[in-house]
């Protein structure tokens, strides 16, 4: 495969916080339509990798190329417009706005000051919002303030807010953390629907869930890639068993 065929190429990525290298010379590549899960023990630098890709944290060295653009030099909102969507670990939705308004804010139109002043809620917006709301099981709660949703529903809403942006790459940080068993199952279904037409990068601890969705798994340890491959490959890698899965 040619290098430019990758959707995302991370090469030699390093970030150092006061000398501590949270991510250390990390390289990995995502193919279009791939579902990649990053696992690893606490403090391995998983969330930092997502922070680096979406621009929340600036890289000390290395490159992140996404559809031919160098993300390390771009501002956060430009990275979003380039097609990268990021879900945070704690559900971050706008509690004072309704579910509808939450999704509408993320609709990819009227993102400048003047554009948002002139923004009109037309049929296309309503249709897009309703269709996404249906996907994330919130179609009956559109008029509810997001603050009243359950933890799991907030997670779904945030995923919906990403979907409506139509990103080429979707990054999810522990999407099923804190969910009930039923919600977990529903989320897995949701992710399976999403992954049909998105490239997804997920951080997850739940190995059952990882096995369910992953094409490939990257195991991180101390800021570096420890192992990479199919779920069976990494599960049987003695180094992964040593530092993460346990005997």
């Amino acid at each position: 495969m040619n290098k430019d065929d990758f959707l995302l190429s991370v090469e030699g990525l390093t970030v150092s916080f006061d000398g501590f290298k949270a991510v250390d010379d990390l390289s990995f590549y995502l193919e279009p339509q791939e579902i990649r899960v990053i696992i690893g023990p606490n403090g391995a630098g998983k969330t930092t990798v997502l922070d680096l890709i979406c621009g929340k944290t600036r890289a000390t060295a290395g490159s992140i190329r996404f559809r031919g653009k160098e993300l390390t030099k771009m501002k956060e909102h430009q990275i979003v417009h380039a097609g990268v969507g990021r879900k945070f670990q704690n559900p971050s939705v706008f509690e004072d706005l309704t579910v509808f308004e939450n999704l509408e804010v993320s609709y990819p139109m009227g993102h400048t000051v003047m554009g948002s002043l002139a923004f009109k809620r037309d049929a296309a917006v309503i249709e897009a919002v309703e269709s996404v709301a249906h996907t994330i099981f919130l179609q009956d709660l559109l008029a509810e303030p997001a603050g009243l949703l359950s933890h799991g529903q907030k997670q779904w809403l945030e995923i919906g807010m990403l979907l409506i942006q139509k990103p080429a790459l979707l990054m999810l940080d522990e999407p099923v953390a804190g969910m009930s068993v039923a919600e977990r199952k529903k989320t897995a279904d949701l992710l399976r629907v999403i992954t049909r037409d998105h490239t997804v990068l997920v951080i997850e601890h739940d190995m059952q869930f990882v096995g369910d969705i992953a094409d490939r798994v990257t195991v991180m340890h101390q800021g570096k890639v420890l192992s990479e491959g199919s779920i069976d490959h990494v599960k049987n890698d003695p180094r992964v068993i040593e530092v993460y899965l346990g005997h």
Partner: protein
Amino acid sequence: MKTSSPLKWLLSREGLYYLALALLLAVILPLALDPFRLNMVGKYLTYAFVAIGLVMCWGKAGILSLGQGVFFGLGGYCMAMFLKLEASTPEATAHQSTPGIPDFMDWNQVTELPWFWQPFHSFSFTLMAVLLVPGLLAFIIGVAMFKRRVSGVYFAIITQAIASILTILIIGQQGYTGGVNGITDLQTLMGWSIRTDEAKTTLYFVAVAVLFLCLLVARWVDHSKFGRILLAMRDQENRVRFSGYDVAAFKIFIFCLAAMFAGIGGALFTLQVGFMSPSFVGIVPSIEMVVFCALGGRYSLLGGVYGALLVNAAKSGFSESFPELWPYAMGALFIGVVLAFPNGLAGLYRRYVMPLEDRLLRGKKTPAAAPKETTARRDDEALPDHLSVEKP
């Protein structure tokens, strides 16, 4: 949006609140008060402009500025410079060593009108300056702070420092600014005396009209998608940023808008009171502005207006009888608001009076009471002027 026709909006519940305020300001108060008192209300109203700006900037967007007096003062000074030049004709100042310049310049051995005073001979320039000088300063502060992601307490402290700096600058540059006395002895506006009772009453009505114009602009911004982004930013700034918005640009815009409102208020203040001085610019007046915004309800535009009127009326009342008590009363008021009703009068109104209104409406079985829609704002954060929800 349910406000497709302006008439329909006026007859909605929110529209009626606006009508009630208009009735109070444009009919009831002018009939009930003598020109002297009405002029005082007019003075309070100029603070309502600051309050509207603070509601947008602090209440909606979560940006607390403790330096709104700066913008109020700049607007006021721009207007005062124009009026002062008009009052300083060569004939009126013939006894000065340099006739034709403002008296305080002459007293300070300034012999020539400084360059930055020159354009204030023009009234149209002055009107522009009333908006643009505060707007431009706010823009510079905004770019410097928000691009660097300075926020919260740090931003508040910096705005306070700017208020302090501007006061010191004005007082120090006596020859150019009139120093601690300010710019006084303002007489006419384009030949029309602003000192007569009739003029003061006219200016009062001008202030009311401009206030409503600003209210409508603020309401339009609030009800646009921009307004929802502000609320979203207040809650989850990062989520807004990673939804593809340049957060700094939104903050800069709303901060500039608030500054321009304050500038308009300042200009109208100068016109109605007849002078401008640094005592309206510094830290204390800036904090008072925040207090009356908090008292009225920092999430409600109309609440801010009522807060400005009530606190200033109370201030006058107290100061007339017990001048030394006012600062304590003010402090107590602020603590009371923070502890007992953090959403201010608007919050109280929404919690206690609006249910009564609902019951009344339902009692009469008017069809208008049937589609009761409330906003999605959190609990009583939502405001009397914030009623129509846009149903998807």
